[in-house]
């Protein structure tokens, strides 16, 4: 339960909005819920809905509308590569293809060890630092810019090692 696990933070989030407008807290609370497993599970959806006096269907519609909320489990790290127009003009599609080949997956798929999912995303406001991607994981979102395939493979190894240490 979020309210039990993060009582201070929940209070602080609700405090940012007028008391009669607590529904505004739905987005920060959904990000909080994703800290556990990288997606919003059923219990969290239920809890957020009752905390904010809105229906679970409404919470689900918000999860569905925004691309950074997820309704199901994927790889621990989502590698979200920008291949939108400005990045594509500087070789992003080639980078993406090379990375997929190296990992043996297609866009939208997860590596066999369940660690990396490759996704494409729309412009991330880093059009001058191509190739670039962000990782989304339970730890949040992080940018990686001016990347190469080799540097990306190294990063995956580093993240895997860090993951083992935590475990």
């Amino acid at each position, binding site marked *: 339960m979020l309210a039990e696990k993060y009582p201070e933070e929940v209070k602080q989030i609700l405090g*940012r909005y007028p008391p009669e407008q607590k529904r*505004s807290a739905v*987005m920060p609370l*959904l990000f909080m819920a994703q800290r556990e497993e990288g997606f919003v599970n059923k219990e969290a959806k239920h809890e957020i809905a009752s905390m904010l006096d809105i229906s679970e269907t409404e919470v689900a519609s918000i999860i569905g509308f*925004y691309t950074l909320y997820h309704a199901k489990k994927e790889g621990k790290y989502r590698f979200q590569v920008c291949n939108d*127009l400005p990045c594509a003009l500087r070789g992003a599609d080639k980078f993406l293809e090379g990375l997929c080949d190296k990992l043996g997956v297609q866009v939208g798929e997860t590596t066999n060890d369940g660690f990396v999912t490759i996704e494409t995303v729309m*412009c991330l406001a880093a*059009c*001058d630092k191509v190739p670039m991607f962000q990782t989304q994981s339970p730890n949040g979102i*992080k940018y990686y810019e001016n990347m190469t395939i080799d540097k990306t493979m190294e990063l995956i190894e580093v993240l895997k090692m860090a993951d083992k240490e935590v475990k």
Partner: protein
Amino acid sequence: MAHILLRHREIPRINEIDIYEKNGGFKAFKQAVKNMEPTEVTAVVKDSSLRGRGGAGFPTGMKWSFIDNNSWPHYVVANADESEPGAFKDRELIESNPFQFLEGMAISSYAVGANIAYIYIRGEFWELTATLDEKIAEMEKLGYLGNKLFGSDYSLKIYTHLGAGAYICGEETALLESLEGKRGLPRVRPPFPPSFGLYGKPTVVNNVETFANVPLIIDKGADWFKSIGTPDSAGVKIFSLSGRIRKPGNYELPFGTTFRELIYEHGGGIIEGRPVKAIMAAGASSSMILVDDKVLDTPIDYASVRKLGADLGSASVIVIDDTVSIDWVINKTLNFFEHESCGKCTPCREGTYWMQHLSQSIHAGNKRKQDVDLLYNVAKQMQNKCLCALGEFATMAVVTGIERFPQDFNLEVRE
């Protein structure tokens, strides 16, 4: 000329509060709260001719003066949802000169009588937001935010609010819906936010770069500001330069700088010295400008770019060279708009879907005249039929791309 907005280029640690203070920081906000009436602040901004830097170019002071004083409380919201393909200026401002943006927001809040202001910032700027929260806390600690500021009766709190990946939330009414905890669907306008905004209350929504201009306008005056740029477009603009350019990046230049200077002097010219084929001056939402010498020598301001059959928008200049086929460009922009259409208006929801599929097939080699004609036709039918600008934006590159680059669609050149 020293930078006005990207001041960290000369003052590297201006993102630290003591360095910002030492360089005149918060002087304008203090001056406004202590010595000026809110209406005086708005009058100075109005007189400066500052226009909104988010894309629409609406006069900022005029927007503030529309705030409805018969309905309270008032809110100020910063639009930091920077998501236009090719735009990356607000990100640099928030990262490297955050206090100037925050001070501008604070001055605006004082001018319109808002005691609470929100920064709606795209969810992808996750790390940046954590830093911004720290900067806000520092301002609170030093008495630049909080209760009874500078011994006056004026109080102000600023909060960040993370978006979660939706281009449409850059549209101000969709942004407000999102901030209210709903899906980001644009509202029917009028009423406009200065009379019916956040929680139905009068609200001023401005872009990050717009706010960053405000402290210097208050400090140095409207005439100083008007002495930079052109009569149509006062001040400087941050151009996000991307695409087939040697040195992509943000360039702060006065309005009136030519495309030639931007691309060749600042951007270092085109990769491998190729010729410029097309310019998209407003990111993926742009009309495609067919480039010749006359275009390169055009001074960049809102009015002059319009004369080229395009809009300046947020000045996210995507440069396209002769190695790139326009049918591919159109397909890329349509992938974007098809994904980002919120689905509220049928012409946009269905139109972006069909345009994306048609352009995919055209780009894959099926350049039959009837398919290109159909694509053009769908785009034309969408125009002027949607609640917000997204539906319109989605058609810009399609219509102008086909009209101005027919050879890229195997069409005979129309005279």
